[in-house]
């Protein structure tokens, strides 16, 4: 659905979300099993997918075949200049575990095939270098992990992490997402670190990755948490002193197959309390808040991400229906007067 979405694309008028599709090449295990390839690139904008119900076609803003290189991809997603120009740019990688999101965003471990994130780092500093006579730049970054509904600062120090693997990650600081009245989203509580070179930025990134939750199941490259990297570029025009700030957000989402595994069906009663002597019946709050769809106020209970889910409220509560308002009564009088030919020369009161 290609509606005009007013996004963080600043002043541009074609404010679309662009969706690219990248097809992963068959890996060794799959090749050995000799399965069929079900996805095929038709042209630059479409792919076809073999489904149990026959072939289906999908449209994208751009399609990258299995042969496309990391370089190809980065070239086409080069929004770095925009971020430096002062806009907010965001790149998400979405897909099932094993589909190649991390490869696309980060690259391989040895960095023989760096992905979008390291390439972006280089690009930022390259562009800055080219413009160093006209602008002064400052680059800073924050890196967050969203895991089990908690946002954690990946720059937090690792001191005292003896039980890091079995328990929750100890001293990692909680981060809250806020948006101030100007609409700027910021991560409150997250440490921001400055970097003066692509190498430094990459080192910060490596440090952050090391602090992530690594889940041993399915895929070693953590498949359960979302990685959020925010790079802020502040540039000061040396000629006229104007300052602009742009942000590049790079997100490696957790495996999308998780999304389907939502909580218990609505009708299922909440079990756990039955078998333990538990003081609180935690689902009671859910039952109560569901008693009516029109509760005047529901005390905040849920995850951080739902905070910014738009709670669209009807404006119609202000445009009353049933009471014949004064306005209408007055107007009716006026109409009567006008109709009866009474010349209402002066103000219509």
């Amino acid at each position, binding site marked *: 659905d290609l509606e005009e979405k007013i996004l963080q694309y600043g002043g541009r008028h074609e404010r679309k979300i662009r969706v690219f599709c990248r097809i992963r090449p068959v890996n060794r295990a799959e090749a050995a099993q000799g399965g069929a390839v079900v996805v095929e690139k038709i042209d630059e904008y479409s792919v076809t997918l073999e489904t149990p119900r026959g072939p289906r076609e999908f449209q994208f803003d751009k399609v990258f075949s299995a042969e496309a290189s990391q370089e190809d991809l980065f070239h086409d997603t080069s929004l770095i200049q925009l971020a430096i120009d002062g806009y907010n740019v965001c790149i998400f990688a979405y897909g099932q575990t094993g589909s190649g999101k991390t490869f696309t965003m980060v690259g391989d471990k040895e960095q023989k095939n760096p992905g979008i994130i390291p390439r972006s780092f280089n690009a930022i500093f390259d562009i800055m270098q080219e413009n160093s006579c006209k602008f002064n730049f400052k680059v800073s970054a924050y890196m967050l992990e969203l895991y089990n509904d908690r946002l954690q600062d990946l720059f937090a120090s690792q001191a005292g992490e003896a039980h890091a693997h079995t328990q929750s990650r100890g001293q990692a600081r909680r981060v809250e997402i806020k948006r101030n009245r100007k609409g700027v989203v910021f991560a409150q509580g997250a440490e921001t670190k400055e970097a003066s070179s692509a190498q430094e930025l990459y080192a910060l990134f490596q440090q952050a990755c090391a602090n992530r939750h690594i889940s041993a199941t399915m895929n070693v490259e953590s498949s359960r948490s979302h990685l959020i990297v925010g790079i802020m570029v502040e540039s000061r025009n040396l000629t006229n002193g104007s300052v602009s700030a742009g942000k590049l957000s790079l997100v490696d989402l957790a495996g999308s197959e998780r999304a389907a595994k939502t909580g218990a069906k609505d009708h299922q009663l909440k079990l756990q309390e039955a078998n333990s002597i538990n003081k609180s019946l935690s689902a009671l709050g859910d039952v109560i808040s569901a008693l009516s769809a029109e509760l005047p106020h529901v005390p905040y209970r849920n995850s951080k991400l739902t905070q910014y889910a738009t709670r*669209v409220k009807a404006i119609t509560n202000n445009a009353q229906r049933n009471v014949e308002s004064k306005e209408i009564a007055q107007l009716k009088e006026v109409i009567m007067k006008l109709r009866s030919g009474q010349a209402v020369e002066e103000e*219509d009161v």
Partner: protein
Amino acid sequence: MASFNSNEWRAICDKFTNAQNLTETESRKDPENDPFRSKYKARDLLREIYCSLKSFEAGEGEEDSSGESGDQRPTEEPVDGQREDVFGQGFSGDSPAGLRAARLGAVEYYLGVNHVDTEELSAGQEHLMNCMKLLERCRVSSQNVSLFIHVRNQLGILWAGRDETETAQGFLETAESIYQRYMKEDGSPPTDMTEYFTTEENLLTHQERTKRFELAYTHTMYYLAQVYKNLGQTERAATYCHTTLQRQLQLNQFTPMEWALNAATLSQYYITKGRYMEGRHCLSAATVISDLAGEVPSEAAAQESEAESERREHLRQKRAEIARCWIKYCLNLLQDARKQLEDNIGELDTDRQDELKMARRREEEEEEKGRKSALLFGSEDTFDSIASIEEKVMCLFPLDFTEARSVFLVGQNYVTQAKDFFQMDGYVTDHIEILQDHSALFRALAFFEEDMERRCKMHKRRVDMLETICNDLNAQYYLLIRRQLMFELAETYNEMMDLKLTLANRQADTQSLDNHTIKKFNHLCSASAKYFQMFLDSLCSPEGKYPEHLEEEVLRPALVARFRVARLHSRFISSSPTVQLDNLNKSLENYKYVVQYCEAHPEAEAAVETELELSKEMVGLLPLKINRLKARMASNN
């Protein structure tokens, strides 16, 4: 218990304790790739216990039932709800046979739960039904009533999980009636299931038995609340939620802040039903209980430690949330009172006011009785504190200014509390919602204020509160909120404009107004039109075009806004004919828009019936007026 030799018995008891330990404690440490390891072990132990008991029973022979009614009950599947006579027929629960049945039943019960926990639902069901069958043969007694209830709770959960809500309901409702009848006819602290396999020394105290038994019944209430909600019987569900909350307090089985939030949320439900007495009670209890969550750590303490800082945040936030629920209480009470009192043009109807005041005298006596029968929260320590908070605000409709003002002040106090936490920086949308509520409180109060001047001042407060923010907010991100604010500001200015006029006309009986008043009037008129126009502009595309088709959420407000802009333009006072003409043309333009839009979108007519009708009239009549004006202008030249 008597006939096993003590070693054998001890062995059985140990096994049982082990099984419990495995199920409850060890299982939490099971690794992710083998999550049921401990529970499988527990299962084996339980099976062994079962076999031991069974083999013992076989040896026991026929020494049971002779003195009792040895009815062989037909082994029909006990579909629950038909077993009201559990109190009537069968072995005495206290007899050896009864005890044996209970013990076996308990093992079946634990096996059933074990299977359910390990996601083997049909096996679980089988065991639980076996338990039921065993109990079938017994009468309810203090030895087994706990089991009677627990097994039905579990079966309720199981069937609900299969979306067979009515079946679940059957089991749970039976559990409920068994409990009630037991408490009426007996009431002594019943044996807890774990006690079937304990040695003498380890039997529980009466207190502990009661506690566990009551907890089981609290769960029954809790599950029934969910079942009724799933069946769409929301009123009953609400009652059961209320009962659950009540029991949690009475039995001291609650976490303060969580309880408080639940009570506060329940109050909101009561408010939607206009049950203000219950709502007030819930909120007062919420306030009292939230205090039990402890002192808010000071700022200094919060600086020192992460944990203290989080705790401070948490407590302050939850209390602020409760404050917001209170605000809604006061606001809705005032608004509902208004609905009772207003006439057809939205003004206070003094006749109705008198009527209601008289009716109320009767109601006050009812209130006292009502309270006693209604479900009260609390325990000895809290009854009083809850009552003292209730006394601060009324729960009947305020019928005059003094009463309205008292409710308003309570609401305003909570606004201050809520804003203290939900500050603009960090909680933009929450902060604004609170301001909107504050504005709405003023609006509600203004209805009761007879003095026009003071009324106007109240509206001015609203404008002051909202105007800066409306203009301050980022237009892109806060589009929806800004629209609400614009609409509200437009209407408020409109109100003020009318009030100024009423004041002026009252002060001077003549038609003509002095310049000062005209200026003031026009200012308010333009301001109102400006905000309606801003609202309309916010619907436009980035290129400035109005949408061809209005979305449902904005349909009525958009057309109403047009209608009001049209009206406002025609009310602007000017001695200059050019200005008058310009305004009339703008007015006509906007009335036309309404008519034309509804012609192009007939489905929209229903949303703005009256406004459309009047717009059509005006579209017919205004051109005549415009022409007369033009003629006058021409002749004057």
